[in-house]
């Protein structure tokens, strides 16, 4: 059975591979051409696909349709960003297709209309488990990237409050704890995403790391990031410094070379104000406040800077000590978090409606993902609707072994 699945999976993807290789080899110039050629090939089956690759142009008439993430963008923008199951799906289908859905369109329209000289608006994506909050966040982030913003993306804040193998007492402040591995990992990914900006932004003050190491004022940000990547011990403080620099310079507050807009995207925001599962050496529980990374992130969440937007998504799946039925912001953020995040713009994400379910089903059919012959019939579709109740993640898991 496995062999059969493999063979049917390989056949359609072989042709796909060749197409992608052709596009990648000629660089960006061909991307525009590819867009045109795709629109001129009227494929009757791709009612659920759109050739519009830039989220700027996505509108209501694209709802329910899948658009392909350009592979170059995926590599740069999401080295760590996409949900793991989606990454598996990308690997299987050899392309990353995201569905355009109303919550994201709403979010993007807010981003387009917002005034960036004022403090940033905080957007919280909330909803039931498996309705597509992280995917929507990634979609919105893709929009910001195509607009040329600087991206600060924390794929899952919960990873920073649990399962940490090394918890060092902070070098700069006595009551804080550092997480060198997570910090350096994040700095590496930050470097990949925002390569263009690293040379343009300069530091505004001197940072002293140890007796022998310091970063002078006026150095490009790249040096700061490299410092964090190379020296693991001070990486958490470097993260704090980087965030501070970005906060100060976004929107052209100081006279830097050209203003840039800052997009802070945090998935699993409720981790910042929840509990941790980390223990200190005397076996008492750590508060999130005592972790350097969390502390700095909280400072980012405040709207005392200008020239950007804060996009966040709640997540129950990774959260600690929260019941599975909790999905509203007040429940997951807790009192402290809610007070900190207020005022915010809530965006609710829900299960697929009829049209979206239809296009998801057609997409899986086109990719030959539904192997069972009964899956192609009307009855099979009704069964899928019943068993998954049009929940995206459950549908995906269900189809995975059909």
């Amino acid at each position, binding site marked *: 059975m496995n062999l059969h699945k493999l063979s049917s999976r390989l056949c359609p993807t072989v042709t796909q591979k060749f197409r992608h290789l052709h596009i990648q080899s000629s660089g960006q110039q061909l991307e525009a051409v590819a867009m045109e050629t795709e629109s001129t090939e009227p494929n009757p089956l791709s009612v659920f696909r759109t050739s519009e690759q830039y989220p700027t142009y996505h509108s209501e008439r694209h709802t329910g349709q899948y658009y392909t993430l350009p592979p170059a963008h995926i590599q740069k923008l999401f080295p760590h960003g996409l949900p793991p199951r989606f990454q598996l799906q990308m690997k299987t289908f050899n392309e990353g297709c995201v569905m355009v859905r109303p919550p994201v369109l709403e979010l993007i329209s807010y981003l387009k209309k917002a005034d960036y000289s004022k403090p940033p608006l905080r957007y919280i994506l909330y909803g039931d488990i498996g309705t597509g909050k992280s995917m929507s966040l990634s979609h919105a982030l893709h929009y910001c990237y195509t607009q040329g913003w600087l991206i600060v993306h924390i794929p899952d804040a919960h990873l920073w409050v649990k399962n940490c193998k090394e918890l060092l007492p902070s070098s700069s402040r006595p009551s804080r704890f550092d997480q060198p591995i997570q910090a350096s990992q994040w700095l590496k990914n930050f470097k990949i995403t925002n390569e263009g900006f690293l040379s343009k932004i300069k530091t505004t003050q001197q940072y002293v790391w140890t007796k022998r190491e310091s970063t002078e004022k006026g150095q490009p940000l790249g040096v700061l990031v490299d410092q964090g990547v190379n020296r693991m011990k001070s990486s958490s403080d470097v993260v704090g410094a980087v965030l501070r620099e970005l906060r100060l310079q976004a929107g052209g507050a100081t006279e830097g070379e050209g203003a840039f807009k800052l997009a802070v995207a945090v998935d699993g925001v409720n981790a910042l104000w929840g509990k941790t599962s980390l223990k200190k050496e005397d076996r008492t529980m750590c508060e999130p406040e005592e972790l350097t990374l969390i502390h700095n992130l909280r400072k980012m969440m405040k709207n005392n800077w200008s020239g950007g937007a804060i996009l966040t998504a709640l997540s129950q799946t990774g959260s600690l000590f929260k019941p*599975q*039925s909790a999905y509203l912001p007040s429940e997951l953020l807790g009192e402290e978090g809610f007070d900190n995040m207020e005022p915010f713009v809530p965006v609710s994400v829900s299960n697929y409606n009829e049209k979206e379910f239809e296009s998801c089903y057609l997409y899986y059919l086109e990719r030959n993902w539904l192997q069972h012959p009964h899956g192609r019939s009307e*009855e099979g579709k*009704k*069964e899928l*609707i*019943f*068993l*998954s*109740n049009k*929940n995206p993640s*459950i549908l995906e898991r*269900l189809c995975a072994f059909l």
Partner: protein
Amino acid sequence: LFFRHICVSSSLWKKNLAAAGPQKFTQEFIDKQVEEFEIGKRHLANMMGEDPETFTQEDIDRSIAYLFPSGLFEKRARPVMKHPEEIFPKQTAIQWDAEGRPFHFLFYTGQQSYYSLLHDVYEKILAMERHQDKMRNKGLLTSETKQILLTGSRWLLKEEIEEYLVENISDHDYMRLIQLMEKLLSMPYCSLEEEFILKFRKQLEVQSSKHEIPALQYDPQGVTFSVADGRRKTAKASITLRDSGSGNITINGRNYLHYFPLLQDREQLMFPLHFVGMLGRFDVEGSVEGSGHSAQAGALRLAISRALLSFVSEGDVEKMRQAGLLTADPRIKERKKPGQEGARKKFTWKKR
């Protein structure tokens, strides 16, 4: 003076109960019991304030259950008042006279009633053949004769024949008897002995699907709905099935996706609707309590199937019954026995 000491040891005084055999009831004893039963029945009717003349066995059972409530699980251990014929086992009367000579000529075969039955049947066969010859001689031999209707009935089982004959017979004997009856049936003019043959046939139940179909009720908005219950292993479920045209399912106020995160439980819910082919048509609103998630899913499934009976045609009802959707699962947790760890598990066996 002479006297003899006759000392007998006490062991001789105890009667050897095992050698006496099963207790024999004399006919007078049974008659006395029947009399007492009748009188007792009239007393009971008086006590319950009902008419002694029209006091049936069902009324007796009801009254005894009321007067002597018993919590015993084994129904046969509860107090019972029935006609002595049903209580005392049927026993053969003494089959030999005062001089020891048996009454019946087949007594020394050991199974006198069985062999006498065989003889009777053969007599009838011979009589039918003679009748046939007579008709042939007269010229009134007709090939189409009235056939006995045998559909809907079956031959009596071996246990039932034994009960009828008050004797033990072997499987081989039973087979011989049935073969002989079949031979009788195969002859023409067997309709003459119809009454005799039907004594040995038992009527089967007419329709095996006797299910109570819940009534279709109408909402104020005009939406048809029906209510049904289901049980499985201490889990009790009760649902309202609405014909509204959407496939929403709410259990205990929560969406079924949240209540049953396991796919298997949702598949159980889907089974009755998918079987009848009405997946997206109904709205289910249910409440369930008790036991675990699997039992709750099973209880809901039974409740949904029962509620569907009112929306579905007769043929579909039979199909559902055969699919096992309407049968309540009788399996319950087995009782833990003393001397064992659990229901089946024994303590560690030590050789010495």
